[in-house]
């Protein structure tokens, strides 16, 4: 008998994850993840900006191509797939469906009115693959797209609520996904209050000098060992393993090396380092008091004061977010008892450390670390399509209690205080005085968390019999020969993310651009520095005009 398969797909802002499922046994067969998003940039606004400039179709093509790369590595016969369930934020889902995105790209209603844009209803949809062309799936395969609550808060937030188990919690509780757009849902007396804080990618490890998303080789935590710190590094299975012994204060040599070499630091590693350095007095924001103003993690991995500022702003946005939600619910943050942490950062983070930094409401006594809820949701949808109705019902119920943080005066004041705390070094005493002055509830230091429950060992708990594969190179690399280019290399030197390379053996030289590495069309530093003015970034994204070479 032919196997009937389904695929669960999580389209995250910072990367995609897919799992192949056996419908007969409901078991996971294989898992593939990417280390980045195929579109240029690091946040949804960058992705939207790209789609505005190059067209939704171009963005969609790049995403489809990456998704197909992912599907092909699942090691199953794609012809046997009868269902694909997708989860992700509204931007990703809209781009996949080729929908209107301008209501997401512009938050201001006046601008939308001028453009004549009406926000589409992002309801749950089931397509046949034929209706959503471009996927490497047979045409009669069903594609399930869940609904959104509001603008930036979509199926991923619904997944957070459904998959975290927060609905079964009898206490006032909060679920937070420490992502680039940190979704959060406060549950109080049977009602949900949701919001999404633009935390930026720092807590996922991006936009940090030596940072990256969680992947094999990234530092996820450090533990005191005598006068030094023991690194915890993710192994090939994405499980935390013991790494080298380091001296945070000194650059250079490792105190004791390890087979498990660290290649970068991820968000939870940043959290652990900040917590340690703050309690040791090595950091008083905005300064790092080491000889070179950096915290070190052995060879060439460090955090500098700019990174501290980035992380601080991310922490600040999340903190301002949950306090604002509490106010919306008519309670004070100290009434929140349980916290559910989701996403890779929420899984690998040491909850006590993140609590001390202010990432968890102060009186929380129980923390549940629940893993990647978005992929878990996609998996359940793939196995049980009827859960789409449950999501739609929940989305309707939540719509009324969604807070747009950008329009909240409380959020603005709280964020201002956080900004001052991290970039001006406002002391805690002044901070709490100012809370009073602003008529905001107090934020006392974190109580000790009595109970930490890790419901999963890693952010993707079950990876299947084929295990987890990491797809490092996704997206296109486009090569162009630009007439007039005289190889001054300015574009390459200026690029902050090393997305551009050059081969000078041809005449004129061949310039390559790796889409997924590009910092986004808003960055565009490469264009104005071009001496002969022949470098046009968009040309590298417009496949119609160029010869495309695809990287394996």
């Amino acid at each position, binding site marked *: 008998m032919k196997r009937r398969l389904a695929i669960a797909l999580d389209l995250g802002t910072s990367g995609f994850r897919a799992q192949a499922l056996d419908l007969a046994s409901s078991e996971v067969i294989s898992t593939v993840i990417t280390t980045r998003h195929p579109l240029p940039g690091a946040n949804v606004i960058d992705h939207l900006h790209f789609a505005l400039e190059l067209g939704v179709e171009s963005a969609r093509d790049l995403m489809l191509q990456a998704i197909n790369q992912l599907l092909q590595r699942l090691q199953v016969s794609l012809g046997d797939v009868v269902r694909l369930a997708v989860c992700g934020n509204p931007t990703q889902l809209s781009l996949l469906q080729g929908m209107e995105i301008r209501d997401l790209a*512009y938050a201001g209603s006046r601008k939308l009115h001028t453009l004549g844009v009406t926000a589409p209803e992002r309801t749950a949809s089931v397509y046949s693959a034929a209706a959503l062309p471009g996927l490497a799936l047979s045409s009669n395969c069903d594609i399930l797209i869940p609904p959104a609550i509001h603008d930036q808060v979509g199926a991923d937030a619904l997944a957070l609520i459904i998959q975290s188990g927060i609905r079964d919690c009898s206490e006032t509780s909060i679920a937070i996904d420490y992502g680039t757009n940190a979704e959060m849902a406060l549950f109080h007396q049977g009602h949900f209050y949701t919001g999404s804080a633009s935390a930026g990618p720092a807590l996922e490890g991006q936009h940090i000098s030596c940072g990256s998303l969680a992947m094999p080789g990234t530092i996820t935590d450090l533990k005191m060992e005598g006068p030094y710190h023991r690194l915890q590094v993710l192994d090939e299975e994405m499980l935390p393993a013991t790494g080298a012994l380091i001296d945070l204060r000194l650059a250079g040599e490792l105190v004791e090396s390890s087979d498990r070499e660290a290649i970068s630091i991820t968000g939870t590693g940043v959290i652990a380092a900040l917590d340690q350095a703050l309690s040791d007095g090595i950091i008083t924001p905005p300064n790092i008091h080491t000889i070179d103003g950096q915290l070190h993690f052995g060879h060439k991995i460090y955090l500098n004061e700019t990174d501290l500022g980035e992380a601080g702003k991310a922490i600040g946005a999340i903190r301002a977010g949950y306090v604002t939600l509490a106010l919306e619910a008519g309670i004070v943050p100290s009434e929140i008892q349980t916290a559910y942490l989701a996403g890779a950062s929420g899984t690998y983070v040491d909850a006590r450390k993140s609590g001390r930094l202010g990432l968890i409401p102060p009186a929380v006594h129980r923390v549940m670390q629940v893993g990647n809820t978005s992929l878990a949701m996609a998996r359940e949808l793939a196995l049980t399509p009827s859960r789409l109705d449950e999501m739609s019902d929940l989305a309707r119920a939540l719509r009324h209690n969604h807070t747009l943080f950008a329009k909240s005066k409380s959020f603005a004041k709280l964020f201002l205080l956080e900004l001052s705390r991290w970039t001006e070094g406002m002391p805690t005493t002044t901070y709490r005085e100012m809370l009073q002055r602003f008529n905001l509830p107090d934020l006392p230091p974190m109580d000790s968390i009595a109970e930490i429950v890790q419901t999963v060992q890693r952010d993707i708990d079950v990876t299947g019999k084929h295990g987890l594969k990491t797809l490092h190179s996704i997206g296109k690399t486009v090569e162009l020969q630009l007439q007039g280019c005289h190889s001054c290399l300015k574009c390459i030197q200026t690029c902050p993310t090393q997305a551009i390379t050059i081969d000078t053996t041809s005449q004129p030289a061949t310039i390559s651009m790796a889409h997924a590495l590009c910092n986004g069309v808003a960055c565009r530093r490469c264009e104005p520095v071009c001496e002969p003015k022949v470098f046009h970034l968009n040309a590298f994204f417009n496949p119609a005009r160029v010869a495309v070479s695809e990287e394996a």
Partner: protein
Amino acid sequence: MKKPPHNSPIFTRYDLNVEDRHHQGARKVSSDLLLQRVADSLVTGDEDETCMAVSQALNAHKPLEIINESLIPGMQEVGRLWDLGNYFLPQVILSSDAMIAGITLCEEEMGHSMERKAKVVTHTAEGDIHDIGMQIVNALLRAGGFDVISLGADVPIEEVVDACRIHRPVMLTGTALMTTTMTAFPRIAMRLKESGLDIPFVCGGGALSEEFVTSFELGIWGSDAAQAASMAEDALSGLDWRQLRAKWNG
């Protein structure tokens, strides 16, 4: 062994000077009790208390006197404490709000607006509603004595250009968090040029890079809201956008 007298001019203990300054509170600004009370409540950032103190002071002093001899010097003290690192941005903003409330009371009494240094138009880009940056800029410009015409968030290009045409500000500011909205700025700059309005246009916020802002005429990149008042002072003293850019960017 002979010792030189205390405080002889052999060396200066700058470390002690710096520390003294860090422990300083606000200095007295007036010997008049009523005026000093206005300044004190402004320095603490208490808007209600400032208004009460101003109302009381109005019984004995002319409104302009209250403005010039307590509200403005009080705000200058706040700025000084901020520069020293003793005060933080949220406190400066509270004091700025208190000052504006106090000035409004005085203006009501005078029956007309007080003369301010110059006008500055501020706005958040069309399509963007993230205006925390602009709010900070507004407060700091007001604290610096400028007449701030704030157009708010999500402001259409035409409206910005019209406001510049009507108010003829010494400086225009624009903030944007979403990169999707920043494209409004070069278009505003172009429209201003077309209208013959060579107004320095300071653009800042999370979305913007120096490279982007300096790629269009009139544009000056503001890396930090704290720069706004000094930039406006420069514009007021006659620096044009090119000179401002040369001074603050690059």
